[in-house]
């Protein structure tokens, strides 16, 4: 019994210690963000690494998510004789929810894990320690550009995802199923508000960018300097990022869209 309590206590303490470490680390990263912004070339490299390289997966996923939404949405909507509303159904789901959320989940798997592995290996091979020795601050040289790269890339990717989804839905809904193209676009335009839906969706993507970026660099920076440590840090990045994206999404959705109607 005492043994069990002791283990519970040790577990709670370790979780709290980790949370405290993360909070301190986030504070340091935020404090040195300004120094990172000045290093434009590094930032461009990171946007290329996590943003441009994720473009293919985002475009293809967006296209297919839009196509599936069109097929499934049509099945349900035509029962109520309102297949014309397909455009607004697809656009609202993509712009408000699926665009930012699915992009953030894919981004955590595609780019976040890579960032964690990269920084973790730098730690394991003592590159970070070497930088410290040369009086180069590893946080503003390595961590901040990667964090900012994720922060800049995710909103762009989310907008591209939503656009690809709308185009996918158009291909299936209009070209394949045969909904009237005019009804598709006008229903969409009548129900999607730029400020209310598009900009709120974009804001969600920015918040997810901060979350995924911070978690990725934190897990990498504080990974155990072994092969096993890097591997478990990478896994943790994907798991924790995904869970926090979904939790944050719920909170943001309640704040943004409840009490609207």
């Amino acid at each position: 019994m005492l043994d069990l309590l002791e283990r519970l206590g040790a577990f709670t303490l370790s979780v709290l210690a980790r949370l405290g470490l993360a909070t301190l680390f986030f504070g340091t990263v935020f404090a040195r963000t300004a120094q990172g912004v000045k290093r434009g070339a590094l930032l461009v490299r990171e946007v290329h690494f996590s943003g441009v390289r994720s473009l293919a997966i985002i475009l293809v996923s967006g296209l297919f998510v839009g196509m599936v939404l069109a097929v499934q949405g049509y099945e349900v909507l035509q029962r109520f004789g309102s297949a014309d509303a397909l455009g607004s159904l697809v656009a609202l789901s993509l712009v408000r929810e699926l665009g930012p959320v699915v992009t953030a989940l894919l981004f955590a798997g595609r780019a976040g894990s890579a960032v964690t592995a990269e920084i973790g290996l730098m730690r394991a091979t003592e590159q970070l320690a070497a930088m410290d020795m040369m009086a180069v601050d590893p946080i503003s040289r390595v961590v901040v550009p990667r964090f900012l790269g994720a922060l800049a890339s995710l909103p762009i990717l989310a907008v591209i995802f939503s656009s690809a989804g709308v185009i996918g839905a158009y291909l299936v809904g209009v070209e394949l199923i045969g909904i009237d193209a005019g009804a598709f676009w006008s229903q969409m335009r009548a129900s999607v508000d730029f400020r209310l839906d598009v900009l709120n969706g974009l804001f969600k993507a920015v918040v997810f960018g901060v979350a995924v970026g911070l978690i990725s660099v934190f897990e990498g920076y504080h990974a155990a300097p072994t092969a096993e440590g890097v591997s478990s840090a990478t896994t943790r990045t994907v798991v924790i990022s995904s869970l926090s994206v979904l939790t944050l999404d719920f909170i943001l959705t309640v704040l943004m869209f409840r009490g609207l109607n």
Partner: protein
Amino acid sequence: MNRSKTNVAVGVFVALGIVALVFMALKVGNLVSFDSAEGYRLEARFDNIGGLRVRAPIKSAGVVVGRVEAIHLDGATYEAVAQLRIHPEYRFSTDTIAAIVTSGLLGEQYLSLDAGGDSLYLKDGERIIKTQSAMVLEKLIGQFLYNKAAESSGDKK
């Protein structure tokens, strides 16, 4: 060389993002669809507006021609007053009928304008005289029951 290639790729990436955002604004969203001060105003009074909401579309022959801008209750007559914003390219005759109808079986309610035959057109700030209120299901059922009851009591006598 390598760096400039990266720069170009990032530039293309950001440009693609901007294009997507513009696509969202113009094609998907309604940023430019006369939601600002464009168009002229009309007023319509209804006994009951049902589920009509602010920003609901105004359609004529099924085409969106404007939006409901504001709804308030006239305290003196207890009528609902709807302020309409109509796209300047469309004009409606003075005997136009404004009706509140529902799109589809369960769809949202919108305002339908049926143009009349008058040669005079409604101008900015004028009122649509002929209106048709929203259908309220409870009232319809109540009326139906009342008629039934009246019928059966008439039979007994």
